[in-house]
């Protein structure tokens, strides 16, 4: 316990020291130490990241001005330094100025945001569609027009380790709580439309690297889309409280080059058929 405590503290301290020395906005620091939002691997996610940094910097500037004035006043205008209170108490001009300036800043922030938002919500021209259904507590993926469909649940290792006082060293589990048995496999450089719904309660499908988070709601079919630039494995989690095991239904997406994806798809088509037969046999028994 105490050694775990020490190593945890040590890791934390070094992380904070590095964060402080590099400055929290440094790209290298953010990538390695997860202090910031991921830039992601889609055009949209990069735009979202830029908007995030834009509004963050604007807040920093406003904060520097307001807190700067406040701290200066706290230091300079204190009674113990013999400060005498001035007598001014209102100024219509000043009030108008500091109503108008924030208004302009807000508009300047909202306009580019509106542009990106419209892009995000435009699901037209998708090259393929996948239906995503949330269950307590797993995801189902159905490749529309492809006759491929499977469930995606928390990996066995994680599921075993996450039981209360399992005694499993979590460091030994691959991607603790973020690995699934059957990840969603998709092609890169393809506009993929996701159709989201749920069978029981509301869930939310979230992969930070795509800047995609959309609720899966019973009785609704929600739409969103992504176009992934780089092959890789991308991880997320259910982001809407969905009951007891809300924390244990991760989202795993493997993006493959289109050619490899086609190969995978062909394999699946064979397998789905055999799995379906197996399931029928199991059910019959």
């Amino acid at each position, binding site marked *: 316990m105490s050694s775990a405590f020490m190593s*945890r503290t040590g*890791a934390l301290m070094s992380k904070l020291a590095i964060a402080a020395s590099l400055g929290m906005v440094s790209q290298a620091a953010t990538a390695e130490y997860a*202090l*910031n*939002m991921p830039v992601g691997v889609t055009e949209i996610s990069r735009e*979202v990241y830029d*908007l*995030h940094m834009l*509004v963050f910097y604007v*807040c920093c500037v406003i*904060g520097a001005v*307001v*807190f700067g*004035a*406040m701290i200066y*006043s706290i230091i300079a*205008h204190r*009674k113990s330094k013999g400060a005498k*209170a*001035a007598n*001014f*108490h*209102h100024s219509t001009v000043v*009030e108008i100025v*500091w*109503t108008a300036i*924030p*208004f302009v800043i807000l508009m300047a*922030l*909202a306009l580019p*945001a509106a542009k990106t*938002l419209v892009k995000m*919500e435009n699901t037209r021209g998708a090259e393929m569609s996948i239906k995503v259904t949330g269950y307590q507590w797993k995801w189902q993926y159905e490749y529309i027009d492809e006759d491929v469909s499977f469930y995606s649940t928390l990996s066995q290792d994680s599921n075993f380790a*996450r039981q*209360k006082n399992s005694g*499993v060293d*979590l460091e030994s589990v691959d*991607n*603790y*709580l973020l690995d699934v048995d059957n990840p969603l496999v998709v092609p890169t450089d393809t506009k993929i439309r996701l159709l989201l719904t749920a069978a029981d*309660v*509301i869930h*939310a499908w*979230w992969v*930070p690297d795509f800047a*995609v*988070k*959309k609720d899966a*709601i*019973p*009785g609704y079919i929600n739409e969103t889309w992504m176009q992934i630039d780089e092959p890789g494995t991308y991880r997320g*989690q*259910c*982001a*809407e*409280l969905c*009951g*007891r095991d*809300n*924390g244990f239904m991760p989202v795993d997406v493997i993006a493959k080059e289109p050619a490899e994806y086609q190969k995978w798809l062909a394999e699946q088509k064979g397998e789905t058929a055999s799995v379906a037969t197996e399931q029928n046999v199991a059910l019959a028994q």
Partner: protein
Amino acid sequence: MSHAEAHDHHHGPEPGFMRWLKTTNHKDLGALYLMFSLAMFIVGGLMSLVIRAELFTPGMQFVDPQFFNSMTTMHALFMIFGGVMPAFTGLSNYLIPIQLGAPDMALPRINNMGFWILPIAFGMLLSTLFMEGGAPAGGWTLYPPLSMQTGDAMPFLVFSIHLMGISSITGAINVIVTILNLRAPGMDLMKMPLFCWTWLITAFLLIAVMPVLAGAVTMLLTDKYFGTTFFAAAGGGDPVMFQHIFWFFGHPEVYIMILPAFGVVSQIIPTFARKTLFGYSSMVYATAAIALASVIVWAHHMFAVGLPVAAELFFMFAAKMISVPTGVKVFNWVATMWRGSMTFETPMLFSLGFVILFTIGGFSGLMLAMTPVDFQYHDSYFVVAHFHYVLVPGAVFSLFAAVYYWLPKWTGTMYNEKLGKLHFWLSTIFINVLFFPQHFLGLAGMPRRIPDYSLQFAEFNFMSSVGAFAFFITQFIFLYNLITTCRGKWEKATDQVWEGAKGVEWEMLPSPLPYHTFEQQPDLSDYEPHPTH
């Protein structure tokens, strides 16, 4: 002489418990509300410690995930409806009559009822922890269909929310009637202290939205037990409709919890800057503007549900607009300090902490209002950090400031300044250790309301939990200071208490306040609380 004694006795409080049960005195009820809210803060705080203990390290150590969900749900319900709201109602009871020269609240018996409903409501809510199926675990937002999976706790949850709503509405009606009818002659509306103004506006918000919440939870109840399908898609209902109704209540609720805090801080800063509040009338208008805007921004809590793009755009622009009047308030506070003659007693420290840390919560609010980016922030720990910044070093710090500020007036005893300052500095340090890392967790992708997390989130969760326990322990300093001050352990307070304090309670009333103030109606025609030109 004997006549005078008999007279005093007649007007004094009844001895023993019956005094508190039957009291219609605004100061007694104010004290009851505040003590009740303190108890609820402790209960809700203990629940948050269960949460932070489980999240201390990765892996499940202490509780079942379902119980964890109950803790997040109950923590929110207790803190919002049991802690923050009754605390401000308590302050309104204690302060509004004495600030306006009124003998008491306008509806004293309703006032008594409004308070005594609360222990019943929260006793009932707490009892759900021991029921079949456990306490409510669907989040304080009670979203169906998940909240339909609540066990035996469901009707008790709904009924306790009804009771809390009734209590809030009686409190709100009392505030409105008192302010509009019982002001002493000469106390014009635009001469009222800011606390009265912010509460007047809050009271209208309460009356506007608490019945909406009551309606929403009643529909949940009939969906569960009477076969209706308001929110069940299978029966033609709409689960998203609940969210619209809930947040139509829920967003104004945010301002219900913060507008009175604005009022408190707007009174404390001028006192310790020894300078008139800058822009009094713009403060009043900004408060009203925030309240009006708060009822047209609700769907910014729901960007991920799949709203039409036009609605998303509207709610983004509307939500952003709220920061304009809020900004005006912050600028006015800074301008009040500017070229003042400041001292830094505990109420001032908490108010300054409020301005800075609430503003940081405001900044993350500005970020959350960016719809495309909200898809990343939504339901992550970034949101948790955001609303705790505006609620804890926001609303709760203003409550600490208010208690330190008015306690000498209420009790006639000055609290211990050294302990007060220690309380402030430790609270400020630990609240940041507790909540600042949660921004990083959210940005890195940790969803809220999860009992366990992957290892990349371990360090900041560890830090956050350390901050949580340290913050909780720090509050015992406050508790000690509070109890000893009420018992008169420290120096006697003067009538004005603070050198720069202006207002009826400081300039015209003794410390401690007598059991009945203003048996004779004061004339405040010549009273100039702040220059109007």
